[in-house]
């Protein structure tokens, strides 16, 4: 997909804030695929990912005023919206599906394992990069980034000291950066 940037990020943001429809079309054409990939890595279901993508663009449209250029790039902001929307969807889904008897802990045990092993998902995006990490690091990034658990929750789930969880996640992230370069 050849992306030719016709707007600077500044221009794009101010056009989006002015509710410029062309700017939104441009945004979609240039970023929808990248965001869709992120959504897919988390929800792993194409139907669900379609819904989430819609929701993500609605959120971008509604919350563009809240985007603070000083705190990071537009794409990072959108990526985090996509990640949060995906995790929220996943959680509400898994909650609805497992209302009968499971605790949260069981959801964690059942959901991610099947998802990770689903063919195709781990060959895209960050997941592909994660493949190169050690098993224990991969698990932690899986829980923290793709499942959205807090460090405290992870410490409880993995029965590890909080400090260990933090250190391992930080180390995994440092390696991730090296792998992305």
């Amino acid at each position, binding site marked *: 997909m050849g992306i030719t940037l016709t707007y600077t990020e500044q221009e794009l943001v101010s056009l989006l804030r002015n509710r410029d429809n062309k700017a939104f*079309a441009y945004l979609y054409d240039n970023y929808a695929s990248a965001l869709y990939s992120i959504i897919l890595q988390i929800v792993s279901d194409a139907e669900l990912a379609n819904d989430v993508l819609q929701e993500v663009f609605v959120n971008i449209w509604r919350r563009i005023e*809240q985007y603070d250029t000083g705190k990071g790039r537009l*794409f990072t902001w959108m*990526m985090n919206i996509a990640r949060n929307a995906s995790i929220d969807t996943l959680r509400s889904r898994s909650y609805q599906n497992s209302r009968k008897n499971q605790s949260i802990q069981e959801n964690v045990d059942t959901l991610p394992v099947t998802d990770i092993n689903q063919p195709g998902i781990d060959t895209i995006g960050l997941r592909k990069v994660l493949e190169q990490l050690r098993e224990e690091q991969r698990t932690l990034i899986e829980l923290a980034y793709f499942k959205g658990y807090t460090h405290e929750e992870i410490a409880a789930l993995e029965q590890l000291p909080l400090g260990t969880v933090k250190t391992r996640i930080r180390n995994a992230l440092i390696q991730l950066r090296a792998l992305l370069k």
Partner: protein
Amino acid sequence: MNIQEYISSGIVESYVLGLADEAERAEFEEMCTRFAEVRAARDAFELSLEQHALAGAVAPPAHLRETILQQFVAEPAVNINGGAPVVQLRPIRRSPISMAMRYVAAAAIVLLAGSAALNVYYFKKYREYSQRYDQLVARQAELALNNKAMQTRMGGYERTIAGLTNPNMAKIYMDASAVPGNGSPAPGSQATVLWDTRTKDVYLMVNNLPQPESGKQYQLWAIVDNQPVDAGTLHMDEGRMMVKMKNIPRAQLFAITLEQEGGSPTPKGPMYVMGKV
């Protein structure tokens, strides 16, 4: 911690990927404003992440594009119907707090401050009135005590007058000049015995007697057939009131001597006054 260590601690990635907690986020944002190196590291990681994501992009189903973009055409129309498009100029980070709630909160704070001030004011007042009340209670108690003392004295004087005016009361005037032998130590001394002829109760009224030295007390004697009979001791603080003494059925003389405090079985001290019945 120096900046390079901070940058390579994994915080940059943690922040950008949305894994940092609230405190870490705040610290990182602060570091970004202070250190260009931190900002540069963030930008670099963001860019590599973005490039990686764009490179690994997965195209969504083509029909989604229309569905999604259609929504944005529809939305501003609502704004136009309502007048000018609503363009928010600043990011609203705390939008859930409505203007009304802000006014309520402001009002609550003002009320709280006012209430606190009134508390202080009324507490001061309360202390002031509490002190005044205590003073009044003390004064009231003092007055009640004085009143009681006055009533006692009044009662005494009433009895004195009743005694003096009672026709059944025999009055025996005792005088220093009547004292035999060496005479009275205080020549001007005078006292009166009032003797109820029916009940034989004896009352004493001091007209003039010197204040006894401490440890001494005046004692009244009835002389019956030349034998002194104790008729009771006298408390000088009764003033000039008529004081009830002992019951004396019969006597020829009455006399007062100065004795040790508490009285004596027989007269030993000097005689001050004497009077015949």
